Each structure stands twice: as C-alpha cells, then as structure tokens.
C-alpha cells in the first residue's frame, strides 16, 4: 500500500492544477490518469483560448497542457498514466494500471485488462477531477460504425493524427460542434453540414464564422432522424424541426456522409464520485447530476474534493481555477497551507466570478451558486 498526502484522479486541467498547488505546499502528490497521455481534453484543443491573459487567452490548449505538465513535474507531482481508479473506500483508492509506470508491461503487448497491475493508494486527501463525458443522441442507426462523439473525432485527428472520416455531418452547433468541425476541416475532412435543432447557433459567433467562411452550411432548426449503411455509415437523413421541436413532414434530406459526429453537450463523468458515496444534485445548466460541493470544492464525503467538469460542465479555464482552489484547500486541511492562501483563494474566487459573468454564463453562475449553497449546508465542516 502506497501512502500519500494527496491523490488526484484525472490529470486534465483541473486535476493538474490541484496537484500543482498541493505539491507546492509540500504534499506528497500522485495524479492518476487512465489515458495514454495526461492533459485531459487540453491535448486535443489546438485552438486558441479566449478571455483575459490570466486565463491563457491567445494560447492553444495543447500549449497549456505542456505548461501544466512541466509545472507539475517541477513541483514534484508524480503523474501515473494508464491508471484507472475503480473503487474508493475509506481513504483508499483501488487502481488498475494497465500500462505506463516504471516497469514495462508484464508481457510483450501486455496492455490488457487481465494483465493490469493492481495498486492501492492510501491518500489523506483526494481530489476527483474525472471530467465530463459526451452525451449520446439516439436515432435509428446511431450505433453504426462512423457515428461517434465529436470529441472522439477530435481525439483521433488532433492527438493520434488519424482522420476519422472524410465526409462528416456534425450534429450540434454549440462550441464543441463548431470548433471540432473547423478542426476536422484543418485535418482534411469535408464537413457536409453542421445541423442544430435549436433555431439559433449555440456557440460563439467567432467559431461559427470560421466554418461559414470555409463554406460549410450551418442548418439551424434541423436534426438527424436516421443513419443508414451496410456495416458503416453511408447516409444520414436530416429533417427540419418546427417551433415545438417536432419534425416537419416532407422536409427530409439525404446526405452522403461516412461519419456523423455528435456534439449535443456533456455531462459530469461522475461514476467514481457516485461510488465514493458523494451526494448529488440535478442541475440542467451544469450538465445533469452533479456532486454537491461547498465553496472549498469539498464534496459531502470527508476528505474528498472535486474540480473541473465533474463539478459542472464549464470551460478549461474554469477547471484550472477550481483545481487550484481544491488543491489549496486540500493542502490547508493537512495544515500545509501557505501564508497568504486566504488572499489567493479570494483572488481565485474573483476570477471564477468573472469567468461566469456575461450573458452566456450567468446561468452557470446561478446554478453553481445554488449547488454551493446546498453544499455549505451538507458538506462536512473541516
């Protein structure tokens, strides 16, 4: 059994930020990530961020990931890849490490479930930063090979440099749908259309403008009704949607596509939090069922903090700030806080407030406020 002060589950922006703050305060810190590369979704975000300079405006996600990993290394964080946490009991994390680590896999090509190394880690404090998961959309043919999450297509093309398809229908014109469409264009695919059931584009105008300039049609008030093909997607049928979300008879249109990307929102990836016994609240604005937490990012389970998309779907810049907050608070609960931490916390809270201001984000601020109020009443006092 390994013993550490702080264990982080998920080495994306939230988890790495928490790990860095914890390690900087003298906590022995291990960050666990099940993926082949740490960095979470930042490693596929090849676009530049918006906002203010302190939130990396003008910097690409992939560069932010590099910076964070470098900072984590200098702070003494141990990052384990291929490490999947499948249970939390008391303060112990049960981990299956399928690859990575110091020693080579047990067999040549032994990166398989039955050959994973078991590892138990006792952590005095835990930060869950397991991120979000893409929502699915069910329509006849949605299980055909070639129908995939927009994030899957983004991962394939930007991280692994494999084009998932050549003729793509993007379903959803929120920021994910718009950005991934542009990035698939950059990788050499044709985007046949972006469709959006709502009467208006959900994402930022700047992203929509980029793909419109490239000649991609964005069809609002449209949805997909069917995918067909022998053993993979060959056609998609789209249809107009009326004001009451019904389909307009006779408006069907068949598109020749080999890939249908689904970008209809995300939800907190909360299975581990649920296993750990965290209490949840339902918040549509935050993506669905969200673990309850207080102002210190502490859940309803003693010793378990959370940060990032797990605590409500927002953006990477918000995840970074929440991660910092969770890391500082976890360290301070181990009496490893720095002088000046309360000012630091105030500054983070101010930056979070500014990230959640503006017409796009007010409902996030309201939803978060409500969640935190429940948390203040229900989460254990340290």
């Amino acid at each position, binding site marked *: 059994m390994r013993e550490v002060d702080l264990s982080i589950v998920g080495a994306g922006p939230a988890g790495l930020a928490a790990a860095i703050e914890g390690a900087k305060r003298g906590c022995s810190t291990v960050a666990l990530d*099940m*993926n*082949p590369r740490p960095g979470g979704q930042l490693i596929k975000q*090849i676009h530049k961020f918006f906002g203010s300079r302190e939130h990396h405006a003008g910097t*690409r996600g992939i560069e932010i990931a590099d910076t964070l990993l470098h900072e984590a290394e200098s702070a003494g964080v141990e990052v384990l890849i*291929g490490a*999947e946490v499948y249970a939390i009991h008391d303060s112990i994390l049960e981990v299956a490490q*399928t*690859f990575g680590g110091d020693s080579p*896999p047990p*067999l*040549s*090509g*032994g*990166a*398989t*479930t*039955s*050959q994973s190394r078991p590892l138990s880690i006792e952590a005095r404090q835990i930060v869950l930063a397991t991120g979000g*998961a*893409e929502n699915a959309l069910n329509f006849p043919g949605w*299980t*055909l*090979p*070639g*129908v*995939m*999450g927009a*994030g*899957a*297509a983004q*991962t*394939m*093309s*930007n991280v*692994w*440099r*494999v*084009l*998932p398809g*050549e003729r793509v229908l993007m379903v959803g014109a929120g920021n994910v749908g718009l950005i991934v469409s542009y990035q698939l264009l*950059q*990788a*050499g695919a044709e985007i046949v259309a972006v469709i959006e059931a709502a009467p208006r584009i959900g994402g930022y105008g700047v992203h929509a403008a980029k793909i419109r300039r490239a000649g991609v049609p964005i069809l609002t008030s449209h949805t997909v009704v069917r995918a067909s093909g022998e*053993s*993979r997607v060959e056609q998609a049928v789209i249809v107009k949607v009326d004001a009451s979300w019904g389909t307009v008879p006779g408006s069907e249109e068949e598109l020749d596509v080999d890939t249908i990307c689904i970008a209809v929102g995300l939800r907190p*990836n909360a299975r581990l939090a649920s296993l750990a016994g965290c209490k949840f609240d339902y918040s549509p604005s935050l993506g669905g069922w969200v673990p309850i937490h207080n102002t210190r990012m502490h859940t309803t389970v003693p010793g378990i903090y959370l940060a990032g998309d797990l605590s409500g779907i927002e953006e990477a810049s918000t995840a970074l700030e929440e991660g910092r907050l969770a890391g500082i608070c976890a360290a301070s609960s181990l009496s490893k806080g720095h002088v000046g931490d309360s000012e630091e916390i105030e500054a983070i809270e101010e930056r979070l407030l500014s990230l959640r201001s503006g017409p796009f984000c007010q409902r996030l601020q309201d939803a978060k406020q409500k969640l935190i109020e429940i948390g203040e009443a229900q989460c254990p006092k340290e």
Partner: protein
Amino acid sequence: MRVVNHPILGDLSPAREVKIYVDGKEIYAREGEPIAAAIAATGIRIYRYTAKQEEPRGVFCGIGQCTDCVMVVNGVPNVRTCITPVAEGMTVETQHGAGRGER
C-alpha cells in the same frame, strides 16, 4: 487515413514503427498510439459485433468510457482499444459477442 500535414500541428513527426497483427493481417502502427488509431488509419471501421444481433460497432467515445471499441487483444477479450497502446507483435482480433479469449 493519416493526417500527414496539418496547418497548426505541422507535419506528422516520424515515429518508430510497431508491427501488430489485426485478424492475422500485419499492420504497422506508430509507437505510443492506441490500437484503435492504428486500426482506423488502415480504414477499418468495425471493431466488434454485438452478442445478440451481431451488429457492427466501432469507435464511439475514443477516450475509454463507452467500451464500443473493445477487441480481443493477445487472446484477452474486452480490451478498450482506444486507450490501450500498441506493442510489438500484439495480436488484435475483431470481437464477436463477449469474445472467446483466454481468461
């Protein structure tokens, strides 16, 4: 299809080749990449067939969450190919139902 040239990421950097066997056929993967990417690069879209209806399935989430891309790897079924890196000499087979590997 490999994304060889990219306006932001630049040209695909050289990587050591790793030989794997997909349904008996030799393919060359890039060291460090997951099995699913190596397979997709060859144009294969079907990773498994479901147990009851024998319907084809491919990559859906790409990040180890949905298990749609599981295959039989080195005789072991239900391996999530999207997060499992390739290794020299690895055998990968299209999975039928729950797979019939060693356990």
